[in-house]
């Protein structure tokens, strides 16, 4: 195989000095947004077209990975030979092979570091590489056991090399060229990296792996559709998608919003699964339930759209002409009522928040517009407006995500940003009392109790197996079968919001439907800020068991409904032994032998729990869990304890009950920050809405 550096024809795609379009990315040297590159490649007389997504690795931007994977058929897993399999390697294997069914190949990069920095012998290098392959395979098996996928040196599904020095190989390439792997060591010894670059150029193994071992859309899409589309696989549409029929009904998904860093123009990126998308034509947005027109159509090339008026099934596309959130399903105008694609699954939920407000109070609405746009591009961030302070509360996975987000917003509207704050969760830990309340005008009544949602149901929500939008019967069936819900109750779910569920379990309460939307919106308010400290709830199930709604709509207004619903929720919640839960990170620290003692003692002071200690030649790998609140100066402490020689990764790993001794102090700290009264909330506070007697006689709340 001969390689050549073609000379660039002059067209818009090629006149580039550097690739990153984004100032922030260049400055920080990390990837923030996925970029799509187009490559064409000749292999054994055939011409191939690649659409390659370069995704970010930082946990803050994991949403970008999920979105890129939704449009992909395969994945090149890349692992640093020195660091080995790290936290985000695992997260990304889970997302890629587990959730999105992208078939993997492996490239073990930075092998030069084993040779030049660690000065390992060929045998030690071999051992290290085998270990990485084993670790990767056990993760593939863990997350996609039914696929039988694995990577191996022998099959040519693992390449090793150095992207920095531009060389690499698979075992078969090495054999074909008759090169002994020891030569690599010799060349480095002599400083002849150029030889490696010329004789073992990295594009050969990569491109060969991609052509031979990653599936074409034709091979991959049938299985992918089964995973991402819950509709009838044997319907006309199901068949068209599995067969990638360009003449079938149009079915496409928006997987990403590309907001141009300079012009701020929004380009929608996605994939056509069946039919053909055409410039100038109208399309239907299934979730938004509206029609829009495609003005410009093409494929994305880093920051430019290369115009192509027709994009058939089995391709990524970029379009311009309207806005919608990432995750939207696009169909032909006459396809109303078709089942949309399942939502894109994200690896983490928000645990930090900041408050932002415009420097110029007049710009609150303008700010709202930009906040909404950015959040619709990345739903791993969320926002709400604090009506009292006129601030937007933005929450996200990690402080870096919020920092980048606010920088973007600040370019459009000058804002004042509060320091990042950890977001706790308020969790009921036992069933609360059934509470009956009346509205302020005493003309309406409701009976509600709150209880912890069982962990299986919480998990089903987190995995997106059950969602708010899905078919009621289907959802009830899953909840009954997998989580032991009573069938009737499961069918009567009104709302799933976050990991919380509202159920109408009344028997023939008249006119309840009339105030349903008010009850729902108050339940949402409650879930966004519950009783202890107005922190969001986790795993709340609220069940309405009875209601009396006045016949005259004049007496069932929003504030009447609110007064009784909020009182009932707050009182019942306080009797459900509510506790603050704190976000936990899974951490993974690899440190030179001899320094692990210091690392462990730092971790112990930070309320961390150690899960595993693993020795690998000259390194020790420590995995454990640590409260997010304890990580502020962790990086500096670790650096100085190991003279900067350790490396680490972390990822959100759910929530844990804050130790008893810290509960009250933390609640007061948060209440103080929010200007709430500095005492533990009591059911008594809400007793004026109790029915029939306006007096709380139950126990007071204590921790």
């Amino acid at each position, binding site marked *: 195989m001969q390689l050549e550096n073609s000379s660039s024809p002059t067209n818009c795609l090629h006149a580039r000095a550097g690739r990153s379009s984004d100032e922030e990315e260049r400055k920080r040297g990390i990837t923030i947004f996925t970029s799509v590159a187009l490559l064409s490649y000749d292999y054994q007389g055939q011409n191939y077209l690649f659409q390659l997504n370069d995704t970010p690795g930082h946990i803050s931007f994991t949403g970008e990975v999920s979105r890129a994977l939704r449009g992909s058929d395969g994945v090149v897993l890349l692992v640093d030979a020195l660091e080995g399999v790290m936290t985000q390697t695992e997260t990304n294997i889970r997302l890629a092979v587990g959730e999105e069914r992208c078939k993997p190949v492996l490239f073990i990069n930075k092998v030069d570091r084993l040779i030049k920095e660690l000065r390992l012998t060929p045998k030690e290098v071999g051992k290290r590489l085998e270990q990485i392959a084993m670790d990767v395979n056990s993760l593939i098996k863990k997350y996609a056991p039914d696929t039988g996928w694995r990577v191996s040196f022998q099959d040519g599904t693992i390449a090793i090399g150095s992207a*920095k020095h531009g060389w690499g190989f698979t075992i078969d390439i090495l054999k074909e060229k008759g090169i002994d792997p020891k030569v690599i060591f010799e060349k480095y010894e002599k400083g002849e990296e150029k030889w490696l670059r010329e004789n073992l150029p990295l594009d050969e193994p990569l491109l060969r792996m991609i052509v031979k071992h990653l599936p074409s859309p034709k091979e991959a899409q049938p299985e992918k559709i089964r995973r991402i589309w819950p509709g009838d696989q044997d319907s006309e549409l199901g068949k068209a998608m599995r067969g990638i029929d360009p003449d079938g009904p149009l079915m496409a998904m928006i997987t990403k919003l590309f907001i141009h860093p300079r012009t701020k123009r929004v380009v929608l990126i996605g994939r056509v699964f069946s039919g053909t998308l055409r410039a100038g034509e109208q399309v239907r947005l299934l979730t938004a339930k509206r029609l829009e027109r495609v003005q410009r159509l093409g494929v994305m090339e880093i920051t430019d759209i290369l115009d192509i008026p027709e994009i058939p099934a089995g391709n990524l596309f970029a379009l311009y002409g309207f806005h919608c959130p990432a995750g939207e399903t696009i169909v032909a105008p006459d396809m109303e009522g078709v089942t949309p694609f399942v939502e894109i699954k994200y690896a983490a939920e928000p645990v930090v928040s900041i408050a932002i407000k415009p420097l110029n109070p007049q710009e609150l609405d303008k700010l709202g517009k930009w906040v909404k746009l950015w959040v619709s591009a990345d739903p791993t961030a969320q926002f709400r407006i604090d009506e009292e302070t006129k601030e937007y509360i933005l929450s996200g996975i990690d402080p870096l995500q919020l920092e980048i987000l606010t920088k973007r917003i600040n370019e459009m509207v000058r804002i004042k940003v509060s320091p990042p704050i950890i977001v706790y969760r308020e969790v009921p830990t036992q069933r609360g009392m059934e509470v009956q309340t009346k509205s302020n005008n005493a003309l309406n009544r409701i009976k509600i109790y709150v209880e912890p949602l069982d962990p299986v149901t919480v998990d089903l929500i987190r995995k997106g197996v059950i969602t708010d939008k899905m078919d009621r019967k289907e959802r009830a069936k899953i909840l009954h079968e997998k989580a032991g819900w009573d069938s009737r109750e499961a069918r009567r779910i009104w709302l799933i919001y976050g990991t919380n569920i509202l159920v109408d379990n009344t028997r023939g309460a008249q006119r309840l439907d009339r105030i349903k939307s008010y009850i729902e919106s108050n339940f949402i308010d409650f879930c966004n800020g519950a009783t202890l400290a107005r922190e969001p709830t986790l795993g709340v199930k609220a069940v309405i068991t009875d209601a009396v709604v006045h016949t005259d709509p004049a007496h069932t207004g929003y504030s009447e409904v609110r007064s009784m619903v909020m009182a009932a929720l707050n009182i019942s919640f306080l009797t459900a032994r509510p506790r603050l839960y704190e976000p936990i990170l899974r951490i993974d620290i690899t440190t030179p032998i001899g320094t692990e003692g210091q690392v462990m003692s730092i971790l112990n002071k930070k309320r961390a729990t150690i899960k595993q200690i693993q020795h690998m030649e000259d390194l020790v790998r420590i995995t454990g869990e640590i409260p997010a609140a304890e990580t502020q100066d962790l990086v500096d402490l670790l650096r100085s304890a190991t003279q900067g020689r350790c490396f680490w990764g972390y990822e959100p790993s759910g929530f844990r009950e804050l130790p008893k001794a810290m509960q009250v102090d933390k609640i007061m700290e948060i209440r103080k920050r929010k200007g709430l009264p500095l005492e533990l909330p009591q059911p008594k506070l809400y007793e004026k809405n109790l029915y029939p007697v306006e007096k709380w006689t139950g126990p007071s709340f204590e921790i």
Partner: protein
Amino acid sequence: MVRVKNPDEIAQMVRSTALENKRIFSIVAHIDHGKTTTTDYLLKRAGLMSPDAAGELLLTD
């Protein structure tokens, strides 16, 4: 070998129904493991970037 194509050729390939000759994939990894360096290397080999903008330049850092 990686080839540079002019936009017309790319457009033709996108519209082509020879799906066996297409690959849509992502490069994923832990932070800093080298995804962008690898992608830039491929682009550079295809002549899509000036050589000093990609991988080898980093030899100097």
